[in-house]
Every structure is written in C-alpha cells, then in structure tokens.
C-alpha cells in the first residue's frame, strides 16, 4: 500500500497546534513510518514550490492550523485545498478563528493606530505604518497584505473536517491521526477528535439546581474548588461547549478555572454565544424584568467571553471599515 501523503501547515496561529502534534512524541515518529510528510514548516524543509507542482488532490490529508489573516495565509489555504483530498481545520483558530478572531471587533485602521501610533512606548513622529510594498535606498521590499478581518478556514475554502481545541488535546490528536490512517472517518463536514457531549456532561464538578441571583468575576470571590462554577455565579461556557479537551476537562477540573469554550459549539449547536445566552436565561433566578436586567448587567464582557474563540465564525457581524478585505 502506498504511504499516505500528509501536509501540516500553520497560518495565523501561535505555534501551539504544532506543539500539540510534537507532544504526541512516539506518535510523531510513527507518522514518519506510515506517512510521507510533504510539508511541515516547523519540522521539515519542503518547499511550497513542490506543492505547487503537484497534481490537484495529490496530498491525501492536510492538517491546517491558524486562521486567515493576510494574503499569504489565503494563498496557502487555496493552494493546499486544491492539492489535498482531505482538508482538516486543525485547532480553534482554523476551526472558528480562535482568540485572534477577537480582532474582528475592531477595524484594521484601529489595529494599526493602536500598534504603530498610540502605543505608550512608540516613537513614530512621522507616522510610518508597515505596508505591503516599500522602497528602501537599495531596492524594493514586500510583506504580505494585512486583511481587514480574521477569517476561519471555512470562510475561504471548502473544509472536510474540523478538529477543535486551543490547543487540541494530545490524546485527541493521536486518536484523530489513527482514524485518518485507517481511513475510518465520519461523513464530510464532521467534527473529529472531540466528544459528542457538552463539556458539562463530562465535568465532574457536581451541579445543583442552578438559580443565579448574582454573577461574580473569577477574581471577586474565592470560589469553591469542587462545586459547579455556574452554581456559584461564575460564568463558565460548559453548557454551550463541546467536550473533548480531556476527561476530566483540563480547565474546569484540572486547573480549577471556568471554561471559555475553546472546543467550540456543543454538538448540534451553530452559534456558541447564542446557545450560552439561552442557557443563561434559564438559570437566572427572577421573573421581574428590572431585576433580570440588573443581574444580566453584572456579566463582564459578554461578547469577549461567550465568543472568546468563536467570534470570527459566529452570526455576529464584524466591524466594518471602508476598505474591502
């Protein structure tokens, strides 16, 4: 049997997804035995020109991590889509935009002004901004064009599977690689390397009858180490989030901190933030509209919390600027 042709690529991510693959240790070595890695920028020195020369569909599987932030990311997304039989959006950024997707609350101009004009340590009297083409005394220099928004992979190309998580839990990566190698994959469009339950279902913190009169921010109280966070009035995205980060979950149980939803919407849910809002509505302990409003107002930063990882893939519209993406 011919060896599987595998590509691993990163776009606008942090490198954590590549580390998750490397942290599979022995598995990485095993991958080398059963697959030809045709591209993996941090670990091998294959050239993108080699990919361009390949026939369409010549790569069996491409694991693509990071969102699409600039012209270079988009070029590679399109190239790898064309050359790959199966394209997997690997990790929260490729899946949903991830934390860098929060930038869609702002315009490109606001980002540039912040970083290159308004930062406290900046010294930029001539208001120089980085730009795709610039002339220096010796010649021309180019850098990729920074887009107006950050996009999840599916907004740019057709995606076959989604492997969630920031970063994906190592055992899930191992299981997904096994499934890929065996060709044991669900129908196109499915989430792989995760659970079919909600995070709450797999969380071992005992849940009482949730009735919330007051919300607290995590630093405002010393919370009970065993009890459900929501029962204590602390926002935890468990009800709206897919399980799979670990059993028991790595944030709520192992780190004693509330979930922020990195595994994305729970099964059968499209919009994680909207789902969480509806879950919240059922636990607020009041029938008085004024009181309900005052309880809701205690929630700090709903958009940045309910859509911490999923803003770029949500139903919410992005902030627009005059410039096209």
């Amino acid at each position: 049997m011919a060896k599987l042709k595998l590509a691993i690529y990163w776009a606008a991510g942090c490198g954590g997804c590549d580390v998750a693959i490397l942290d599979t240790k022995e598995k990485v070595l095993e991958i080398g035995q059963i697959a030809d890695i045709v591209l993996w920028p941090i670990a091998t020195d294959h050239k993108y020109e080699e990919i361009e020369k390949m026939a369409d569909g010549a790569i069996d599987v491409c694991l693509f991590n990071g969102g699409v932030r600039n012209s270079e990311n988009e070029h590679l997304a399109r190239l790898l889509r064309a050359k790959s039989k199966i394209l997997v959006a690997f990790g929260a950024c490729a899946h949903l935009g991830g934390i860098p997707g929060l930038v869609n609350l702002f315009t490109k101009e606001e980002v540039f002004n912040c970083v290159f004009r308004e930062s406290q340590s900046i010294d930029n009297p001539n208001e120089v901004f980085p730009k795709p083409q610039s002339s220096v005394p010796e010649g021309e220099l180019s850098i990729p064009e920074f887009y107006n928004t950050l996009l999840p992979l599916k907004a740019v190309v057709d995606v076959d599977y989604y492997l969630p998580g920031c970063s994906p839990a190592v055992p899930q990566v191992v299981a997904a690689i096994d499934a890929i190698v065996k060709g044991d994959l669900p129908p196109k469009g499915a989430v792989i390397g995760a659970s079919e339950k909600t995070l709450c279902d797999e969380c071992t913190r005992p849940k009482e009858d949730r009735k919330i009169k007051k919300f607290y921010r995590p630093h405002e109280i010393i919370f009970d180490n065993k009890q459900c966070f929501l029962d204590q009035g602390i926002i935890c995205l468990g009800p709206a989030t897919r399980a799979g980060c670990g059993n028991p979950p790595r944030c709520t149980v192992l780190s004693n901190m509330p979930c922020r939803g990195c595994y994305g919407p729970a099964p059968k849910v499209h919009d994680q933030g909207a789902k969480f809002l509806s879950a919240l509505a059922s636990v607020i302990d009041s029938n008085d509209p004024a009181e309900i409003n005052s309880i809701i107002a205690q929630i700090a930063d709903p958009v940045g919390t309910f859509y911490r990882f999923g803003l770029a893939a949500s139903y919410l519209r992005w902030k627009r600027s005059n410039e096209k993406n």
Partner: protein
Amino acid sequence: MKKISIDPITRLEGHGKIEIFLNDAGDVENVYFQVPELRGFEKFCVGRPVEELPRIVTRICGVCPGAHHMASGKAVDAVYHADPPEVTKKLREMFYSAHYVHSHIAHFYALAAPDFVLGPDADPAVRNILGVVDKVGLAVGGEVIKHRGYGQEIQKIISGRSSQVVWTLPGGVSKGITEEERAQIEVMAKSCVEFSKFTLQLFDDVVLKNKAYVDLILSEPYQMKTYYMGMVDQNDKVNFYDGKIKVVDPEGKEVAKYMASEYLDYIAEHVEPWSYLKFPYLKKVGWKGFVDGKESGVYRAVPAPRLNVASGMATPLAQEAYEKYITTLGKPVHATLANHWARVIELMYASERLLELAQDKSTTDPSVRIVPTATPTEGVGVVEAPRGTLYHHYTTDKNGFVEKANLIVGTTNNHAPISMSIKKAAMGLIKKGQVVSQGLLNMVEMAFRAYDPCFSCATHSLPGQMPMEVFIYDVNRKLVERLERA
C-alpha cells in the same frame, strides 16, 4: 544592485524573511530582516476584563505561553494593587523554572547542539537532532526527551495544564499543590539538576575542548558591541521571575536599573515600513539606526546579555559554571554564539532553583489567592522570558476593563540586533559578488539561531536547521541564481 532573499521557512510560508542587497562592487550594502505577521493583541485586549488577560495573551505564543502567563499575571496583580500570598509567588517561580527547563533543553539539543556536536560544516541532512542522537548515543536522546518532558509535566502538576495555561488571577492563582505533588516535583527536579550537570559537561567536552569551536565563538563576524539588558534580584544575581531590570553599556558599566513600572522612561520603539514588528531601543541613548556601539540605543536581551548585566548566579553549581564562562570569555561577552553556553548555565540555574523551591514544604499551603479590594488602575508585569525581557502593561477603567495594553515581547527586543548579526555574517562571506553558498547559509543560520528567535515561535524549526532558500537577483530584479539547502 543584486538582491539576495533568504526565507527561513521558505518563500511564501515564512513568518520571517531576510533580504540582502549587494552594491556595485559586489559587497554587502545592506540587510533587511522582515517579520511579515501581525495579529493585533494590543488592540483586541482592549475592552476585555483585565482578569481574563492572563488566559488570552498565552495565545501570543504556543511554545512559550508560560512566559506570557507569568508577565500577565504580575501585571494584573499590579493593576489591582494586590500582593499575592508568599506561597503563590513561590509556586509561580517554581512553575516558571520548570518552563525554563523545558524551553532551554529544547533549544540547546534540537537547535544549537547540531552545529557543535556534528560541526557547522556537517552535511545538513544529518545536522539535526537525530544526527546528535546518533553521535552521542540513543540513551542520551532518551534523557533529553525525558527531562524536557519533566519540564512540561511539572508545569501541568502545578497549574493544571502544560500549554495554554489558565492559572493566574489578580491576587493569586486558581490552585496550589499537595504534599504528594510537591514530593513528585522534587524527584523530577533532582533529576533535572543531574541532567544539567551532564549538559554542561557535554558542552565542555564537545565545544570548549575543541579550539576551532572556541575560535569560532570568538571570531569577528560573530562579535557585536551593544548595550545589554536583563533582570537581577536584590543581590544583583540573574533572576527570571522577579527583580529589577538592569542595563549595562558595551563596556559593561551599569547605565540603568529600574522597576517594571518605570520601563517607559527607558525603552521606546521604532517603526519601519517594511516589517510588522517594531524595533525597541534605549530611549536615553536614542535610535541611530542598525548600528552597534555606545552611541546607538540598540540593546540585546538573551542569555549572554543576562549574564553580562548580573554579577553572578544565585545557585552554587550555576555560579561555578558562570565563573568558568567569564574567565574564558571575559566580561562583558560580545560574542553572539556565547548565548549557547550562557543558555546551558541558565538551564543549571533553573534546575537548581526548581529544586530549592520544590524542597520548600511551605509551598503546599492551600491559601494561594486573595481577593483584591483596591480600585484597579494600571500595572506593568515583567519577567525574563527565555528569549528576552518580556513587558506587559495594562491600563483599565475603575471596573477593571482594559483601556490600553502595551506588550514588548522577548524576541522583539532583539529584532534590530538580529538584523545586524545577519548583516555581519553576510559581510564576512560575500565579497566582490562571490557568494559562498553553503557557508553563507550556515553562518546566517548560526547567527540567527543563537538568539533562539521566536516570532510567534514561527521561526523554530525542530530538526535543528532552518529550511532556507537564497535568491540572487541582478539589477533588473531578474533571478540569476538560486541556492537551496539540500
């Protein structure tokens, strides 16, 4: 004018790119080192509740999230004017020492060792971590994997996660450790100290006993006289987690020693249109361009500079190694390649400090967090990241929502010096239009790698070499030659 492009990761995929221009005589006119990425964390942290930042900024870098988590944790304490319990400070430093153990082992064995164990002229196909294991033996390879793994495991025991940590909050941390866990960490820390001894001995045997390598470290293309920055404790010894930031001039004379909160009096950042990454420099000296010397505000902040600013190491075995280092190289050390040696000395310090803290039974105290009561305002958190001094500065409204966030990240400190080191290496090898192809690739790569640069960790290449291509263009920008790593 000829233009040579070197893409560390390959031409289009790269998160770091080097352009070399030759003049009419065929010598190097100038070098540009470009970072083609920007994600805008400083902007989208605005509007967030500040207590969430330690678990947001870890996504700046998936390889060193621990450093961002620590700097951010200290910054949010400062914003809330909260002084965490003593046990918490010890636990954070224990966590951070383990982070250093993992990071320095990975860099030394995967990235630096191939150049020395196999030699800079070895076939690139074997000049990688696998080649190192072949040469020094499989058992050593197993020890490397085991101890890097200990670094990760200890971080996980302490915080609950080994990557993308979610542990610190204003006033403390979310969990402590049990006596059983402390004892487990102590066993692993002891082993890390032994492994650090082995690593220092390996460096001694392979590098220091080989005159050619010592000559290479001290050779002219790898020297640069700049200012140096690093963190020191109250005894003026190297510290990674807390202390004052100290700066010395190219002669080694102290020119600044300041608290984290005073950093804006000392550092400013320059912008160029051809890179998304800024260029920090010493404000009082000024930005004079990409030049070294006392008149230029360019400074370096990596292991060798940290050893230049401090008067020694705070633990016995690291101090012993430090003394040998200074005796051999003098002080201050200007040799870029000496960073590898300094990094191994720091590995010893991190291991010894980890063990000291793990042997402290008071670290099992469960009271690891206080609830802050003061009105939040503004705060700066600084730690010494493996790749340079890391600054997180947050300003909030009275409810703790972020109004401004400023970040100066480890590698960013070294953006200008890296460009300059590459230029020096290139000048040594390109004369009158004659390009020494393999030599150029090796030397540029070695100069670059000594900084362990991490652009969102994108320039890390684990098998010990950076895939590279060099394009040479004629005056009309027509490609005349292309060199490639086999």
